[in-house]
């Protein structure tokens, strides 16, 4: 089994995370925002896997499964919210839903 160097794995995770952040910040469409969030979560999960493989510990995989479950739940709630937003504002623009401003 060829072991991927730790650095490459972490770099990939970092790039993925940065892409997610940028997506989160620049996209106004809520669906894309949700997707960016998923990317960031998976980037974090990847970092855990890589680290777990490096130390030969199962904790990384445990954490990844944990993140996976959480992401699933988050997507469920997020999509429900998106449907509601679309239903109410007739748009998917996240800036339109700014009723919570102080």
């Amino acid at each position, binding site marked *: 089994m060829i072991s991927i160097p730790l650095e490459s794995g972490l770099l990939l995770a970092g790039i993925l995370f940065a892409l997610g*952040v940028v997506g*989160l*910040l620049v996209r*106004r469409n809520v669906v894309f*925002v949700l997707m960016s969030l998923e990317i960031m979560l998976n980037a974090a999960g990847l970092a855990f896997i890589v680290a777990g493989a490096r130390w030969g510990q199962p904790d990384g995989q445990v954490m990844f499964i944990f993140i996976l479950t959480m992401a699933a739940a988050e997507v469920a709630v997020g999509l429900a919210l998106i449907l509601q937003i679309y239903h109410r504002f007739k748009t998917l623009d*996240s*800036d339109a*839903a*700014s*009723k*919570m*401003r*102080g």
Partner: protein
Amino acid sequence: MLELLWIVPALPFLGFLLLVLFGKHLSRTGVALIGVGSVGISGILTILIAISFITAPPAGHHFAQTLWVWIDVAGFTPAIAFYLDSLSMIFMLVITFVGFLIHLYSSEFMLDDDGYSRFFAYMNLFIGSMLTLVMGNNLLLLYLGWEGVGLCSYLLIGFWYQDPANGYAARKAFVVTRVGDASMAVGLFLLFKHFSTLNIQSILTQAPDLWAIGAPVATAAALLLLGGAVGKSAQLPLQTWLPDAMAGPTPVSALIHAATMVTAGVYLIARMHVVFALSPIAMLIVAIVGALTLLLSGFSAITQVDIKRVLAYSTISQIGYMFLGLGVGAWSAAIFHFMIHAFFKALLFLGAGVIILTHHHEHNMFKMRGIRKQLPVTFWTFLIASGALAAFPLVTAGFYSKDAIIWYAWSSEQGSPLLWVAGFVGAFITAIYTFRMVFITFFGEPRMEATHKPGIRLKIPLVVLGTLSVIAGFLNLPETMGHFTPFSDFLHFALPAVRTFHETLTQEFFFQIYTALASLVGIYLAYFFFIRKFEFIVQFTKTTFGAALQRYWFSGWAFDWFYDLLFVRPYIWIARINKEDVFDLIYDGIAAISRVFNRMFSFTESGRIRAYAMSIVIGAIIILTIAVVL
């Protein structure tokens, strides 16, 4: 007999209770029966007690009766207990007897009033409280009666409550006397601190041992008590409430503001005479207060047009005489004047009441004039009482009582020529204003017709009091005229005799002649100016000086104006501007500050998810940078 003492004040209280509870359902006759009857029975009882007290005096010429311990805390044990000696006996007799006559009079006087039962309820409460005041064996019980009569005075001045002016007069009376009461309360604190008791007799017996003559603390105690006395007795500087108190029904003025309540101060000083005697300064101040008051209010009385206000100022002035008597140590002379004054002043008020009642409730003397033919009984009794007030020599009781005070103002050890001059001038002025009132009201061309004739219940008190205003004087004849003094002999069981320099009989005789002359000349001057040459007065009041003087005296030496400026207005002003409570500003300030912060930070809550995400990212970057750098 003496064991029944407690019933004397209990009966009027019972009458009050019955009238308050059932007054609405009783007929007027029923109300009058309870109201007058309770005082009448208590009067009869007082007379019986007096007879038993005089014929078979108890040991030490005093009698005490304890009903129950009122408060008992760590050595502070005032009781609901009554004390009877010759001083309280005389006050009880006057209160119940004059009180009964005035109640009888009121039963006709107030007949047309809607508040008939309310009136008698208040009057009974007053008699009960006044009796408690003079019978209490400790100062706290005395204070209970003291405040109780103040309450009744308030209620009765404001009896016709619909008129805001009456309400104002009532409030003024209560608040001004309360100022005096506060001083008296402090006096009680001081006495308790030093004697560990409020029992009057134990204070009086302990005081000479504990305090030296002229000790500052004795002066303080005496002056604090004097503060209470000047409030209740309308003496300088708290005299301003009494003229306004005339807003009440006339029987009230007769009972409360002439005969009984306003003399409570005299009673207090006489009762605490040992404390006063320990402080020559306080005694002097009492005498000066009396002398000044009798002069100031005498001058004010000359200018009044309202018959009741003339009488009010003359009451203040006569109580000034009592204070003068007390101040020079002539205790029994002061008490004698109190009794005589109660008779003739009550009579004057009752007579004025008849006039007012039968003349469309008109108070202005100048609008009546010449009514002696219409009301003969009233006229003659009023004349007798006026004679007594003006100290008409030999035949009126007022001469004997007032002459004694003026004489002692000269001859007593604490007396002085200046005090005598004040008393003498006062007697002169008294004669002038009294007969000015008589001549204006009863003589001259009639301007009004009496609407109806007074009934029998109005006349009986007039006649009885008129008789007393003559014969009561013979209870205490001076040395020059037979030296028949059962009154002061009786009082000397409770009060010490006056200590005089050894003046000769001739001297006393000449001084009596001066006093008599003052009275006669005063009456003549009143006749001259107000019957014969009335235009003189009219002319004089038209000059600038005359008009100013008249206005000044008419307003009671502008005390009201002064107090208004000094106390009333600032108080109202402070209360008004501080309605919203200045301390609330502090908390409003705190609230405002939090609101500012709220506004400062609330713009970050834009509601845009991307902005939040951005700030999270920036925050994360900053923290990471810090972590890396450090």
